[in-house]
């Protein structure tokens, strides 16, 4: 393994982390317009968004939030295990399983809501459009994340205290997906719940 373009292993590690943070900034630009569209549409059609939100399955949404945040914990533990040549594989497997559980629950919600969404008109149709577009884009990212974690799991033997940049960098991506969901959850599930 040559590190000729880098002064040191530390510099090399920092470069890979910096690359991932730069990529995450572009990901933010990717999600950003949808968030802007949500703010604009909701300010214009608040009541339709509230009634749309009341059709969401709040128990499943809350459970999914807890699952995804727990997957972030196991991902952080996988990164630390890799840094210390520890049991990386177990934590990676748990992370991927939590990710799959989230996707399964999300998919079942999409199926349950589809009839309602197909009948919706006006502002509520816009609510459902944004709901499917934003949670869909999020799920695409999570699917890629599960694939990456599965790949790391397959090659986990390569990682050690000396070389673990791929685990670290994938961890950043995974946590970013978690952060996006942290905002999606109240935007779609929690509107005026006291009136539901």
């Amino acid at each position: 393994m040559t590190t000729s373009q880098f002064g040191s292993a530390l510099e090399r590690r920092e470069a890979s982390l910096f690359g991932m943070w730069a990529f995450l900034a572009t990901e933010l630009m990717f999600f950003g317009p949808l968030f802007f569209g949500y703010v604009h549409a909701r300010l214009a059609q608040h009541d339709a968004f509230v009634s749309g939100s009341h059709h969401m399955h709040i128990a499943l949404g809350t459970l999914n939030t807890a699952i995804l945040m727990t997957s972030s914990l196991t991902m952080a533990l996988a990164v630390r295990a890799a840094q210390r040549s520890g049991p990386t594989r177990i934590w990676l497997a748990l992370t991927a399983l939590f990710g799959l559980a989230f996707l399964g629950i999300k998919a079942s919600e999409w199926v349950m809501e589809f009839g309602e969404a197909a009948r919706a008109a006006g502002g509520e149709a816009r609510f459902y459009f944004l709901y499917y577009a934003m949670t869909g884009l999020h799920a695409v990212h999570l699917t890629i994340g599960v694939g990456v974690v599965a790949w790391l799991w397959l090659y986990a033997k390569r990682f050690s205290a000396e070389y673990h940049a791929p685990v670290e960098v994938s961890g950043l991506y995974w946590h970013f997906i978690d952060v996006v969901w942290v905002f999606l959850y109240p935007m779609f599930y929690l509107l005026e719940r006291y009136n539901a």
Partner: protein
Amino acid sequence: MSYVLTWLGLMALLALTFGSAYLPMGPWNSATNMAISCLKALLIAVFFMHLRQAGALLRLAACIGLLWLALLFGLSWTDFGTRTLSPAPWSSR
């Protein structure tokens, strides 16, 4: 240990958002939810994403995306906030 504490903090904040949604606070519900979401994002970024130990370069890279997004939101809003939308006859509002 700090990871588990971060996770406990995230779970407590989740319970707080969920609970607050059932208190009638009008527009303050959304404000509360967004504040809690920002706090959760901060916990994840600082502890899980290691910004606490990161150098200036990585911290800057983490903030620059948010700065750029804020600029784009602000500039877009000057358009949407100051003009009347005239939808085409065939587009339902």
